[in-house]
């Protein structure tokens, strides 16, 4: 974990209404390089809305999302202009959707899905792009001879790994993940978690991961944020929140897990 330069992300007083519903209510936290933060809570607790606000895909009513950009210092995602946000979204950030279909282009080959992000950041040499796409496909355990196949011919687990390769090929510093293991078989899930864990350590990635699966949070996250009706009811070390939850709602959530 790098200690220079301060937090990568500083979130302050973030709030968002939908009509009369307060979807995200006064959320604040810091995220450091190399740190994985899990956001947990039941459906409708505001987890995915919060993720969209952090990534600048949705504008908040109030609050700041201060991102420490490479070589540029701290910028507020909330007030930055759209072109700048797009540049960050394809260079320094990644966004892994629950459904790979939302994060992949299904009509172009697997290799092009990965290579496209490289072209978007200015790579032009076809041979190099193909080579790096191939390298990343291997790293996420997709056979090299599938490079020219369409993602539609892949299984759900392979598609999800391809989406991860597409996001990581430009070596982002911050990756948002919305239930990345959600729709997968348990056996595929385990392999994906192992892969993610290795990549987080190796690349010193900062990750904000939304999940309803507390076992995923335990295995992947350093810290955990428990949300209920848009509010953060508890934020702490993952094992502390799971082993000794303090807030009434965290206790309910933890006590509801089936023991496997």
């Amino acid at each position, binding site marked *: *974990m790098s200690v220079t330069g301060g937090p990568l992300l500083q979130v302050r007083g973030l709030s968002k209404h939908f009509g009369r519903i307060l979807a995200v209510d006064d959320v604040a936290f810091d995220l450091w390089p190399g740190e994985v933060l899990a956001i947990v809570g039941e459906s409708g607790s505001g987890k995915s809305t919060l993720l969209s606000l952090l990534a600048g895909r949705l504008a908040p009513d109030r609050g700041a999302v201060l991102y420490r950009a490479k070589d540029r210092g701290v910028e507020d995602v909330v007030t930055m202009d759209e072109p700048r946000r797009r540049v960050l979204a394809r260079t320094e950030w990644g966004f892994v959707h629950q459904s790979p279909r939302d994060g992949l282009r299904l009509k172009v080959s697997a290799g092009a899905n990965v290579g496209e992000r490289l072209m978007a950041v200015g790579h032009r040499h076809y041979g190099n792009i193909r080579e790096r796409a191939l390298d990343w496909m291997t790293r996420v355990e997709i056979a090299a001879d599938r490079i020219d196949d369409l993602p539609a011919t892949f299984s759900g687990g392979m598609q999800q790994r391809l989406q991860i390769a597409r996001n990581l090929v430009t070596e982002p510093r911050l990756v948002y993940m919305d239930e990345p293991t959600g729709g997968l078989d348990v056996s595929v899930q385990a392999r994906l978690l192992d892969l993610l864990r290795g990549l987080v*350590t190796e690349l010193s990635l900062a990750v904000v991961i939304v999940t309803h699966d507390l076992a995923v949070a335990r295995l992947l996250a350093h810290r955990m944020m428990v949300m209920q009706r848009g509010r953060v009811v508890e934020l702490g070390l993952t094992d502390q929140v799971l082993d000794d939850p303090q807030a*009434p709602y965290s206790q309910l959530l933890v006590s509801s897990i089936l023991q496997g």
Partner: protein
Amino acid sequence: MLRVTGLDKTFTLHLQGGRTIPVFHQAGFAVRAGECVVLAGASGVGKSTLLRLVYGNYKAAAGEVWVRHRDAEVDLVTADPRTVFAVRRETMGYVSQFLRCLPRVPAVDVVAEPLLALGVARDEARVRARVLLQRLRIPSSHLDLAPATFSGGEQQRVNIARGFAHPYPLLLLDEPTASLDAANRATVVELIQEAKARGAALLGIFHDADVRDRVADRFVDVEAMRAAA
């Protein structure tokens, strides 16, 4: 190496009408480098709770847990999360009663993982993991299999190897020999004695009287730290 002072712990059970269970009041003790301190007391007195309060997966209501980390003392109760992670990565190891790890990850990688987090090269980390697992009599044929299918005793030995892979200056042990046979108990006693010899501080719970007598330098009476119910 470890200094605990004025530690209070009360569990509040919100799902049971906010019932409170006071556990510790003003708990305090210290562990020096090179010694093994054993937490003593009857079952249910709170020995594992005390160990978890030190590690930080249980949250103290008051008090301090000072650990010597990178030539300075850090209070884990008030330290920021990043400092706690650095202490856990470099300074303080914890062998829990049960192995908890990713399914489908081979035993050798489960043990090598804390080394990788410290920046040890993968090949070297795996070699060190293999040596330790073989010393704890995990059959060679099992090293590349995931521990989920192992027996309870084998899983516990993988857990011990994981705890001893990096020479932590402070090691917390929660009944590391509970489900082991005599030969493996003896190996764990050896590992503990080697750790003491290199100057590590150890804090442990041992139900096995024979193991306890062979490793303990001092006992801490956990009963005496209990809060009045």
